[in-house]
C-alpha cells in the first residue's frame, strides 16, 4: 500500500520532475540547471539613425504645440490678422486633404469606407459649431484670472503631449483624451483673444493643428519616409523661427530640447542597451504579452 522509498544509490540522478519520488528536497537543482541559461534573446539591436527617424514623431508634436503657442501669441498681440490666418489655414488644409488621398492612391479611403460627403459634413459641423459658440467662448472666462487660464492651458497641453499616441503600445496612451485636452486648452486660450472672430479662428486652427495634421503626418511617414524627414525638418525650423521672433532664450531652450530628443536620447538608448541583462532559462517565466490597457481602465 505504501510506496517503497527510492533506494539512495550514487547512480540516482536528479530529474526535473515532480511525479517521481526522489531523495532530494523539492527545491533541489543540480549543476545542469544553469547550463540552459540564455541572455538577451529578445533584445533588439537598434540602429542609431533609425531611432532618430522614429523620434521625429515626438519632434513633430512638440513643434505643433510650439507653433500653436506662437500663433496664439501673435493673435493676442494683434500682429496677425485673423483673416490671413484663416485663409492660410484653409489653403493648407485643402492641400493636405488632396495630399492625403494622393499619397496612397485612395486606398485608405476605400478601406475605411468614408465618403467625401461625410468629410464635408464633419467640416460643416466643425465650422458651424465653432462659429456659433465663438461669442460664448469670448465671454466664457472673462471673470477668471488670466494666470489661471495660462496655467490650465499649460497643463492641458502637457497632458496632450503625454497621452498622445506616438505609436507605442502602452496603457497610458489615449488619443481621445489627448485630443480633448488640446481642444480644451485651445478653447481656454481662445477665450482670452480680443474678439469672437479671433476665438473662432483660433479654435479652427487648433483643430487643424492637433487633429488633422497628425493624421497627414502618419500617412506621410508610412508612404514617403524621405519627404517626411524633410517636412519634419522644415516644420521644426519654422517653429524655431517663430519662437525666435518672440524670445531668443525660449528659442535656444527649445532648440536644445529638440536636439536632445532627436540626437542625445537615441544615443543614450543604444548605450543603455549594452547594459541589458535579460536572462532566460529552463524555469517557467511569466511573460506578459497582451496589451494591459484593457485591464487598467
Amino acid at each position, binding site marked *: 500500500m505504501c510506496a517503497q522509498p527510492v533506494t539512495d544509490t550514487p547512480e540516482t540522478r536528479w530529474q526535473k520532475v515532480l511525479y517521481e519520488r526522489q531523495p532530494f528536497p523539492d527545491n533541489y537543482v543540480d549543476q545542469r540547471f544553469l547550463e540552459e541559461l540564455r541572455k538577451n534573446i529578445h533584445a533588439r539591436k537598434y540602429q542609431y539613425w533609425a531611432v532618430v527617424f522614429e523620434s521625429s514623431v515626438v519632434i513633430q508634436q512638440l513643434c505643433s504645440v510650439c507653433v500653436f503657442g506662437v500663433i496664439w501669441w501673435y493673435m493676442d498681440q494683434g500682429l496677425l490678422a485673423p483673416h490671413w490666418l484663416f485663409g492660410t489655414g484653409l489653403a493648407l488644409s485643402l492641400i493636405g486633404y488632396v495630399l492625403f488621398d494622393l499619397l496612397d492612391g485612395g486606398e485608405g479611403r476605400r478601406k475605411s469606407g468614408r465618403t467625401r460627403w461625410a468629410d464635408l459634413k464633419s467640416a460643416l*459641423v466643425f465650422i458651424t*459649431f*465653432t462659429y456659433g459658440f465663438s461669442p460664448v467662448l469670448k465671454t*466664457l472666462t472673462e*471673470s477668471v484670472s488670466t494666470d489661471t487660464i495660462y496655467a490650465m492651458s499649460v497643463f492641458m497641453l502637457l497632458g496632450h503631449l503625454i497621452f498622445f499616441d506616438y505609436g507605442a503600445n502602452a496603457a497610458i496612451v489615449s488619443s*481621445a483624451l489627448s*485630443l480633448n485636452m488640446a481642444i*480644451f486648452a485651445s478653447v481656454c486660450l481662445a477665450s482670452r483673444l480680443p474678439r469672437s472672430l479671433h476665438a473662432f479662428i483660433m479654435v479652427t486652427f487648433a483643430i487643424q493643428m492637433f*487633429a488633422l495634421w497628425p493624421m497627414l503626418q502618419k500617412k506621410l511617414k508610412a508612404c514617403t519616409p524621405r519627404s517626411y524627414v524633410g517636412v519634419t525638418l522644415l516644420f521644426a525650423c519654422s517653429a524655431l523661427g517663430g519662437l525666435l521672433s518672440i524670445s531668443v532664450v525660449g528659442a535656444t531652450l527649445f532648440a536644445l530640447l529638440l536636439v536632445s530628443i532627436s540626437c542625445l536620447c537615441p544615443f543614450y538608448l543604444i548605450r543603455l542597451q549594452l547594459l541589458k541583462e535579460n536572462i532566460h532559462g529552463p524555469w517557467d517565466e511569466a511573460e506578459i504579452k497582451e496589451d494591459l490597457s484593457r485591464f487598467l*481602465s
Partner: protein
Amino acid sequence: MGLVSRGMAAAGLGTAPAVVRPGPPDAVPNPTPNPPPEGAAPGSSRVPSMVLKAFFPTCCASADSGLLVGRWVPEQSSAVVLAVVHFPFIPIQVKELLAQVQQASRIGLAVLGTWCHHRQEPEESLGHFLEGLGTIFSHEPWLQLCRERGSKFWSCKATHWQVPISPGAPGEDQVMLIFYDQRKVLLSQLHPPAALPDHQAGDATASAGGLAAVFDTVARSEALFRSDRFDEGLVRLSHWQSEGVEASILVELAKRASGPVCLLLAYLLSLISAASTCWVFKLWPLSFIWSKLSTCEQLRHRLEQLTFIFSTQKAENTSQLMRKANMLVSVLLDVALGFALLSWLHGKDRIGQLADALVPVADRVAEELQHLLQWLMGAPAGLKMNRALDQVLGRFFLYHIHLWISYIHLMSPFIERILWHMGLSACLGLTVALSILSDIIALLTFHIYCFYVYGARLYCLKICGLSSLWRLFRGKKWNVLRQRVDSCSYDLDQLFIGTLLFTVLVFLLPTTALYYLVFTLLRLLVVTVQGLIHLLVDLINSLPLYALGLRLCRPYRLSAGVKFQVLEHEAGRPLRLLMQINPLPYNRVVHTYRLPSCGCHPKHSWSSLCRKLFFGELIYPWRQRGDKQD
C-alpha cells in the same frame, strides 16, 4: 403560574408589607416557578411541584360563610374565586346558576370549595357541615378557606379527595392566597410585554399567559356580577357590585339615542363621500390639485375617521373600541380648538388686520428677493461668475418677481374676504385651519418655488451633462447593458463638439450652482415651515388622547402587568399576597394606541435628501407616486 419571583419571596421574609417590584422591562415578575417559602411547609417531606394559588377578591373578605364559586385553571394550578354563595341555598339552583353563567361567558365555572368566616367563636358543627359540602359539589382539589376572628388569621387548605399521593390522609397542597381587586381586574385591559430579553422570554410568555387567564376569567364572567346586593334572587351571592345606577339615566338616554344618531350621521357622511367621489372632481387638473393640497388630504382623512366612528357596526374587540374612542376624542378636541381659533379670529376685526398685514409682508418678501437677486447679479461674495449668464438669469428672475408683485396687488382687494371665509373653515377643526394655513403659505411663496424649480432644472441639466461629457472627455462611455463605464472610440467631430460643450459647461457651472444654492435654501426654509405645521397636524391627528386620559385618570384600566405586596408571611400559615395592577407607561400607551396619521408627507432620510439636493432633483413636501414607503 409562577407569578411570585424568588427575589420577592426573599424580600417577603424580612418585613411583611413590602411592595415587590419586578424587573425593569415590565411588571411581570420573574416567572420561574418558585420553591415554596420555607416557613410554609415545615417538616414537609415532599415538595409539591407547584404551589396552589388561590385568587380571592378583596370585596369578599368580609362576606358571610358560604361556597366559593370560580374557575380552576389546571395549567397554572390556580383557582380564581369569583364570588361567594351564601347560605341558605339549594345545590340544584347553584348548579343552574353556574350553568347559565357558563353559557353566557363560555368559561368553565365550578364550585371550588368553601368559605368560612368566623365572626364568633368557632363552631365545630359549621366546620363539619362545610366539609360535608365537598361531597355534594365534588371538585378537585377542594379548597377550604377560613378567616378567623378579626382579620388577623387566615387559613387555607386544599384537599385532594380522589388520588391521595401518599397513602393515608388526603393529600394537601401548599396554598398561596392572592387578593385581588375584582373591579379593577374586571375593567383593566392587560397589555402583554412587547419583548423581553433572551432567556426570560420563554418563561415570561408562559407566566403572562397565566396572568392573562386570570384577567380573562374575571372579565368574561361579567354576567355573574350583574345581580346586585338588593336583588332577592334564589341564590345570594357576594361579589363586587357597582355603586349604583342613580346618575345613569342620562347615560341610558345617550345609549338609546346613539343608535339613530350614528345611523343618521353615517348616512350624511356617505352622502358627502359620494359627492366627493363624483367624476367632476376626478378630471385631470382638479384631481392633481386635490392631491397636492394638504387641506384636501386632511379633510379626506377626517372623513374616513368619522365614517369609521359612526359606522353602525359594533366594535369587534377592545382595541377597535379604543381606536374609535381615540378618534372621537381627537376629532372633538380638534373641533373645540378650531372653535377657539374661530372666536379669536372673528373677534375684534383680527381678520382685517391680518389681511392688511399680509400684502405688505408679501411685498416685503418680494423686495428682499429683488435685493438678493441684485446682489447675485454683481459679484456675490467675491465669486467669479460668468457675467453674461449672471445677467440673463438675474433679469429673468427679476421679471418673475415683477409679475408676482402685480399679481399680489391684483389680489389685494379680495384678500380680506378670502381670509374671512377661510377662517370659517376653522369650525371643521384646528387641523383643517392649519392645513389651510400651510396651503396659503405654499401659494404665497409660489415665486420661490418657481425660482427653485428653474434653478434645480438648470443645475440638474448641467450636472448630468458634465458627468456624461467628462466620460467622453476621457474617451469612455456609460454601458447601459452592463451598468459600467466602457472605453469607446469616438469620431473626431463627436470629440470636438463634446469637448467644446464640456468646456462651456465647466465655466458656466459656478454661476448656475450659486443660483441653485440660494434658491434651494429659500425653498428649504419654506418647506421647513410647512413641515412644522404638518407635524402639528399629525400630532393632533395621531395622538391617542382617550387612551392617555384613561391612563391619567384610571391608571388600572390599561395595565402592563401586576405587582404583589406581601400581606402576611408567617410560618405555618399560607402566604398572603395583594395583587396590584401596574399601569402601562405613557410612552407605551402612545405607541400602542397611536392613530394612523395622514401619511401624505414624504419621509426623506438625510442622506437621500443630501443626494437629491446635490444632483438637483426636486424636493416636494408631498409624497411622490414613485417614492418608496419608508
